[in-house]
């Protein structure tokens, strides 16, 4: 189809429509609301054949979503930030029910203090929930990953729900070029959902049964883990079909200027664009820089990460999230992927930045590569970087002084 300008939120809604979803339970929260508003408009106009219902909370919304998925409906919904946390209990239930569906998370940093712009503590809080996770860098990727997510989630080898993540503001409200695929081709890519034993009035089935015994619980959890791991294979196959039909190639990770790269920065989501810019800038100065983007976060692409990061002088992990008392959340996952690799990188630099959508200048990103080049290869664990510019600290201190101090 002719490319159009659209926001990430609209791209998400358009993909849900193309996926012919049956049911959209909804609850508003900034910066996600435009997704459900758009779908509500289409459902009202009759241009989208889906049942749209606004629930009274995200917890109810996810309960309705999971229950509907068990009846065999194709389900779509969206939330952000506190909304995801409020719904969290149901995420573990829905994955345990092995009910495939797609949940958009429009990343927004978590309170307190309250802010509207993104970081990934919200979506990464769901990393152990059993939901598959695909993270997007561009508005095009938002639309495409929604379609891929349904294919993988509904794959009989998988049967798990999925989260597609997009950053608030930097994608949700950013308009850029998106080519939506034709409906007929999407129908070829994504056939109607064929649920294994859906709840029917005429044929009762008990879902989410209590097990009460640890060995049974373990049996089902191990199966869930195996299913999540099989999602890699399902994703690769789906991505191959997707490329055949639509021409765009998606792997679980994506390398940028990696061929001869000695310094590789690992990033995810929309700020990856800023990382690519920094790679280009420092390459102009002769630094052999590259970037590895994580697109799939669950299942974790351990082998792909290891294959592309090994043999480098220094790699760095850019975490746009913070686990207080640990540091970045993805750093240990990357480090674990490399532990058993013979030709490990000389060092792995932890970087935390962009919390609450903190803006990053081009020079600030370039300095991450500078720091990588200064790391003592094979020496002590490098000191983590926590990005903040002097002028930002001055502004923060001014605000704090205005607020006053105790005593």
């Amino acid at each position, binding site marked *: 189809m002719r490319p159009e*300008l659209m926001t990430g939120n609209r791209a998400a809604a358009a993909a849900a429509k193309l996926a012919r979803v049956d049911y959209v339970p909804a609850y508003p929260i900034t910066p996600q609301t435009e997704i459900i508003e758009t779908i509500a408009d289409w459902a009202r106009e009759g241009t989208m054949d889906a049942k749209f219902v606004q629930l009274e909370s995200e917890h109810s919304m996810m309960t309705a979503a999971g229950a509907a998925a068990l009846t065999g409906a194709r389900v779509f919904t969206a939330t952000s930030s506190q909304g995801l946390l409020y719904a969290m209990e149901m995420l573990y239930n829905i994955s345990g029910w092995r009910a495939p569906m797609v949940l958009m998370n429009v990343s927004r940093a978590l309170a*307190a*203090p309250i802010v*509207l712009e993104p970081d990934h503590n919200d979506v990464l809080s769901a990393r152990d929930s059993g939901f598959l996770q695909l993270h997007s860098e561009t508005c095009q990727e938002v639309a495409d990953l929604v379609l891929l997510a349904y294919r993988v989630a509904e794959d009989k080898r998988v049967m798990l729900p999925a989260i597609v993540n997009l950053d608030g*503001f*930097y994608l949700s*409200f*950013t*308009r*850029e*070029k998106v080519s939506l695929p034709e409906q007929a081709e999407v129908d070829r890519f994504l056939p109607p959902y064929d649920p294994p034993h859906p709840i029917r009035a005429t044929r009762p089935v008990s879902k989410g049964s209590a097990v009460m015994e640890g060995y049974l619980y373990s049996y089902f959890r191990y199966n869930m883990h195996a299913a999540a791991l099989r999602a890699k294979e399902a994703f690769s196959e789906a991505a191959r079909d997707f490329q055949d039909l639509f021409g765009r190639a998606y792997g679980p990770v994506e390398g940028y200027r990696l061929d001869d790269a000695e310094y590789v920065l690992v990033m995810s989501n*929309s*700020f990856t*664009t*800023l990382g*690519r*810019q920094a790679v*280009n800038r420092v390459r102009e100065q002769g630094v052999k820089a590259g970037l590895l983007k994580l697109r799939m976060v669950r299942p974790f692409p351990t082998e792909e990460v290891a294959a592309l990061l090994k043999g480098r002088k220094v790699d760095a992990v850019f975490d746009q999230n913070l686990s207080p008392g640990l540091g970045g959340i993805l750093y240990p996952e990357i480090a674990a992927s490399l532990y058993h690799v013979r030709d490990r990188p000389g060092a792995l630099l932890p970087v935390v930045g962009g919390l609450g959508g903190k*803006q*990053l*200048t*081009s*020079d*600030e990103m370039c*300095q991450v590569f500078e720091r990588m080049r200064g790391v003592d290869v094979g020496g002590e664990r490098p000191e*983590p*970087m*926590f*990005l*903040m*510019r*002097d*002028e930002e*600290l001055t502004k923060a*201190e001014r605000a*704090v002084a*205005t*607020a*006053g*101090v*105790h005593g």
Partner: protein
Amino acid sequence: MILRVRFHGRGGQGAKTASRILGNAAFNDGYNAQDFPIYGAERRGAPVTAFTRFSESEITERGFIFSPDVVAVMDDSLTADPTASPFAGLRKGGLAIVNTAKPAAEVNGGRTDIAVLTLDLTRRALDTLGKAVLSSGIAAAVARASGITSEAFMRGLVEELKEVGLSDDAISKNVALATAIYDVVSPIKLHTEELPARADLVPLAVVVSGEGTEDVVNTGNSASRHTGNWRITKPVIDYLKCTDCMICYAYCPESAMSAGPDGRIAIDYDNCKGCMICQTECPLRAIGSQMEGLQ
């Protein structure tokens, strides 16, 4: 070639819509385009920033524009507002388009290495639309200056105004306004150069040297924030008609009305946000309105 445009306005003036009109117009003209707004809590009068990038090649940038080629300043009070800093990072040889009735030298942010184009868009918007909504006017000025064709611009303009739900009548008035502005601006060939911007990064130990709570201990410090600069319309008391009945005092949601030293009612312009409730409630029609920034 990539052109980066940063719009600075106040909530209600149409900065976001202007960025989208320009993005749409550039896209219609065959460029790759990207537009993006930043507005914290949505609130009329608060500073809003919006961005448009357009380029012949793929756009490989995203988010806040630190080094714009063009800044579009929709309210001249923002040129001196440190929270808005509309000239920050504007490239050497770049262009500032400022909505003002003042001479360029007074609104150039002290920058002599840039071109400044001043237009009294508020006056034109008031004359044509009857209100100070500036999105169409400022977008027309930037589009023309950057060489976007009239056809591509007008199509983008109409599409965006339909998208925000304007009536056909309002759209045709906006088209008339935009056409007039498009016609008085000339395309400007820019040769811009990024300002050197070394980021001084501070180590964590320095950042976390404070107490680190977000408690506000200094109660009443909101008085030090002069929220009156959000105002677009200013209430003015006609003391020949005013009887000091204090009705406006009772209705003012900002407590900006008080009895002055002479016993007469007075408006605290530092904090009046120009909601004009006082004008509506005044039983004697003794409160008039005046646009901010008009001489």
